[in-house]
C-alpha cells in the first residue's frame, strides 16, 4: 500500500540532494540568470557531482546502503538550506546585475495566445501524469533488467564498482547507472525508474532554457511542453534506460554554449557547457557524436566572429572541464579492455564485436537506411513512418517534427536557430553513418522542438485558412500524443496507486519473476546463474549471460560427452541455469545451445544431476510464448 509513497519519497530525496549539491556549484559561476535556469543547472550539476562521488566511493569499495543513506541525508540538508535561500535569491534576480537575463528580454513578436499556452500546459501535464503512473509500476523493460539496473544491483551486492569480464556494459560510461544505484540503495527499482522519469522533466526544462535565448521565455515553455509530447520521450520516462539522461545533458551543454557565444554572457557559461558535456560523456558514448556535431557551428563561429581568441579559449575550457568530469570512465575502459571506447572504435575489437552477431542480423537491423546519401535525405520520413525498422515503435519520435520542420522554408531567419539546426543536421548524418536506432536521436529532439516552435510563431503570418488547417492538424497530433501517454497507465494504475502488490504485477508481466522468486527463496552465498535470458535484475545473485560466456570461453566445446556438461559448468563456478525457448517464433529468438546441451544430459544416466526447480510457460505482451526452466546443477 505504501510502496509507491516510499518510492516517491526516495526519488524526491535524490532530487533534493542533487539540488543541494548543485546549488553552490551553480551559484559560484553565477549560472542563476533566473529562477528556472538556476534550478535546472543546480539539479543537473548536483546529479553529476553526486554520481561522480558515488562512483568514487564504489571504486574504493564503499558502496554500502546505510552509508549512501547517511550521505543522501546530509545532501538533503544542503538542499533544504538552498531552498530556504530561495526568497533571497528571488530578490537577487529582481535586482539588476550584469547583462540582462535571457528570460527578461521580450522578443519582438507577440507572445503565445493564452489558449495555446494553457492547452499545451494541460497536454504536457497529462502526459507527465500518465508517464508518472506508468513509472510507478515495477520495471519490466528488457534493456533495463539486462544492464541499466542489473549492473548497479551487482555493484551494490559486491559493495564496489568492479570489472565484470562477462559483462560488456561494466566498462561503459555509467553515470546514469550510478544514479540508479543511488535509488536502489534508498528504495528499489521503482525509485530508479522514477529517476529516469525525473530526467525527462529535466530534459523538458532544459529545452525551455535552451529555447529562451531564441524565442523568448513564454514561447520556450511551448517548446518544453512539446518535448514531453514526443512518444519516444514518454516511453523512456516509463523505463530506467539512459537516453533521456543523455539528451538532458547534451541540451544543457548546447544551451550553455549558445548563452556564451550567441548572447555573449561571459566565460562562465563555457564552464557550464563543459560540465554538462562531461556529464553527457559520462552517460553514453553517443555524446561524442553530439559534441562532434557541436564542433561544426563552433568552427563556423570561429571563422565569422572577430573574437577568435575567445572562441578558442571557450573550446579549450569546454574540453578541459568535460574531460576532467568524464575521463574516469574512459580511463577505466582503457585499463581493463585496452580500448577507451570498448567495444567500439578500435578495429581489432570492433571486428570481434561484429563477429559475435550474424551479418544479416547485425547490418540489416542496425543500418536499415544503408549508407546511400539519398536515404539520408528521406530518412526522417522512414524513421517517422516505419519506426519498427529502427529499434521499435515504442521509441519513435512521432510525426510532429516531420510535419512541422518543412515550414521553416517560409519562416524568417532567427538568430541562433542556424546553430541548432546545423548541430541537428550533423548529428543526423553521423547517426545515419554509425547506428540507426531511433533511441539515439533523442538528443536532437529538443533542437527540433525549438525549430517547431519557431514555425508555429511564423505560422501567424499565414492567411487564416491555411493557418487554421495546419493548426487543427497540429492540435490533433498533439492530442494523439497526449492520449498515447495516458494509455501507458493501462494495467499499471492499480499497482502504481498501491492497490495491487508489486509481486502480483510482476508475476503477470515479468517473464523471469517466477524463476527469480524460486531461486531467491533458496539463495546461498556464492550462487551463480548462467542465463539464456538477458533479464537478470530480479535474481539476487551474480548472473552471467550465456551468449557472452560462450563467446568468451567456448564452454560448449570443452567436453566430449553430454553427461560431462553440468560438471563442466559446475567447475566453472555456476550453480544454476535459466533455460529459455521461444515456442511460437514471435518476439526475441534465443540461441538454443544451452537448452540443447541440458536436454542432451537429461537423456543420459547423469541426467538427475540437473534438478529442475521451476518449469513454466509465459505469454509476453508482444505475443511471444516462451518456456522457462530454472535448473540447479547437482554435485
Amino acid at each position, binding site marked *: 500500500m505504501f510502496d509507491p509513497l516510499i518510492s516517491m519519497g526516495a526519488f524526491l530525496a535524490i532530487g533534493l540532494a542533487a539540488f543541494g549539491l548543485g546549488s553552490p556549484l551553480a551559484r559560484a559561476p553565477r549560472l542563476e540568470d533566473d529562477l528556472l535556469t538556476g534550478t535546472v543547472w543546480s539539479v543537473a550539476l548536483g546529479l553529476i557531482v553526486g554520481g561522480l562521488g558515488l562512483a568514487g566511493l564504489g571504486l574504493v569499495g564503499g558502496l554500502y546502503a546505510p552509508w549512501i543513506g547517511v550521505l543522501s541525508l546530509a545532501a538533503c540538508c544542503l538542499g533544504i538550506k538552498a531552498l530556504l535561500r530561495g526568497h533571497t535569491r528571488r530578490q537577487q534576480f529582481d535586482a539588476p546585475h550584469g547583462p540582462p537575463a535571457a528570460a527578461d528580454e521580450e522578443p519582438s513578436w507577440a507572445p503565445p495566445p493564452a489558449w495555446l499556452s494553457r492547452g499545451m500546459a494541460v497536454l504536457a501535464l497529462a502526459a507527465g501524469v500518465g508517464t508518472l503512473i506508468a513509472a510507478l509500476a515495477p520495471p519490466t523493460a528488457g534493456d533495463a533488467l539486462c544492464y541499466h539496473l542489473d549492473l548497479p544491483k551487482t555493484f551494490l551486492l559486491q559493495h564496489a564498482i568492479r570489472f565484470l569480464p562477462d559483462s560488456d556494459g561494466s566498462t561503459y560510461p555509467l553515470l546514469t547507472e550510478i544514479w540508479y544505484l543511488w535509488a536502489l540503495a534508498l528504495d528499489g527499482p521503482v525509485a530508479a525508474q522514477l529517476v529516469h522519469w525525473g530526467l525527462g522533466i529535466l530534459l523538458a526544462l532544459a529545452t525551455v532554457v535552451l529555447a529562451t535565448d531564441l524565442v523568448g521565455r513564454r514561447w520556450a515553455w511551448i517548446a518544453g511542453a512539446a518535448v514531453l509530447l514526443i512518444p519516444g520521450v514518454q516511453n523512456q520516462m516509463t523505463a530506467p534506460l539512459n537516453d533521456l539522461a543523455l539528451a538532458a545533458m547534451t541540451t544543457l551543454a548546447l544551451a550553455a554554449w549558445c548563452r556564451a557565444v550567441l548572447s555573449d554572457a561571459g566565460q562562465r557559461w563555457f564552464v557550464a557547457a563543459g560540465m554538462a558535456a562531461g556529464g553527457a560523456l559520462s552517460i553514453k558514448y553517443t555524446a561524442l557524436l553530439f559534441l562532434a556535431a557541436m564542433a561544426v557551428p563552433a568552427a563556423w563561429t570561429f571563422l565569422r566572429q572577430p573574437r577568435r581568441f575567445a572562441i578558442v579559449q571557450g573550446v579549450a575550457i569546454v574540453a578541459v572541464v568535460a574531460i576532467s568530469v568524464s575521463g574516469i570512465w574512459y580511463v577505466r575502459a582503457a585499463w581493463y579492455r585496452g580500448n577507451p571506447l570498448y567495444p567500439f572504435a578500435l578495429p581489432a575489437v570492433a571486428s570481434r564485436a561484429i563477429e559475435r552477431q550474424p551479418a544479416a542480423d547485425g547490418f540489416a537491423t542496425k543500418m536499415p537506411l544503408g549508407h546511400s546519401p539519398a536515404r539520408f535525405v528521406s530518412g526522417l520520413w522512414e524513421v517517422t513512418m*516505419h519506426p519498427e525498422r529502427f529499434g521499435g515503435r515504442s521509441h519513435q519520435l*512521432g*510525426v510532429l517534427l516531420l510535419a512541422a520542420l518543412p515550414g521553416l522554408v517560409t519562416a524568417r*531567419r532567427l538568430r541562433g536557430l542556424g546553430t541548432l539546426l546545423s548541430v541537428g543536421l550533423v548529428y543526423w548524418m553521423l547517426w545515419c553513418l554509425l547506428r540507426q536506432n531511433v533511441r539515439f536521436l533523442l538528443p536532437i529532439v529538443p533542437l527540433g522542438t525549438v525549430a517547431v516552435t519557431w514555425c508555429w510563431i511564423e505560422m501567424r*503570418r*499565414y*492567411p487564416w485558412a491555411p493557418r487554421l488547417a495546419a493548426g487543427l492538424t497540429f492540435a490533433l*497530433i498533439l492530442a494523439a500524443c497526449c492520449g498515447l501517454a495516458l494509455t501507458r497507465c493501462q494495467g499499471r494504475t492499480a499497482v502504481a496507486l498501491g492497490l495491487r502488490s508489486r509481486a502480483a504485477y510482476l508475476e503477470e508481466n515479468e517473464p523471469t519473476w517466477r524463476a527469480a522468486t524460486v531461486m531467491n527463496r533458496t539463495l546461498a552465498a556464492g550462487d551463480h546463474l548462467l542465463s539464456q535470458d538477458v533479464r537478470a535484475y530480479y535474481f539476487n545473485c551474480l548472473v552471467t549471460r550465456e551468449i557472452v560466456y560462450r563467446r568468451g570461453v567456448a564452454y560448449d566445446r570443452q567436453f566430449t560427452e553430454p553427461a560431462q556438461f553440468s560438471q563442466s559448468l559446475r567447475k566453472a563456478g555456476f550453480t544454476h541455469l535459466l533455460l529459455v525457448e521461444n515456442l511460437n517464433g514471435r518476439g526475441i529468438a534465443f540461441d538454443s545451445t544451452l537448452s540443447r546441451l541440458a536436454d542432451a544430459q537429461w537423456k543420459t544416466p547423469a541426467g538427475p544431476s540437473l534438478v529442475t526447480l521451476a518449469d513454466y510457460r509465459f505469454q509476453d505482451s508482444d505475443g511471444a510464448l516462451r518456456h522457462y526452466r530454472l535448473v540447479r546443477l547437482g554435485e
Partner: protein
Amino acid sequence: MIAPLRLPDPETVETRRRLRRAHRLVASTLLPERRSSPPAASGVPAWQAWMVAAWVVVVAACYFASMLGLWH
C-alpha cells in the same frame, strides 16, 4: 534659506520631449535592431502557406494510417 520651488517651463519640457524622440529616431536608424529580432514581419504568400498546410495534413494522415496498419 530654502530654494523656491521652480516649476518646469512647459516649452522646455516639450522641447526636451521632441529632442528625445529625435535621438531615438537617429539611434534606431543608425544602430542595428535587437540581435535576436528577425526581419520585419510581413504576410506569407498564400500559395506557400497552403503548401505547408497541405504537407502537414498529408504527413499526419500518412502517419496515422501507418500506425493503424492501414498503409505501408
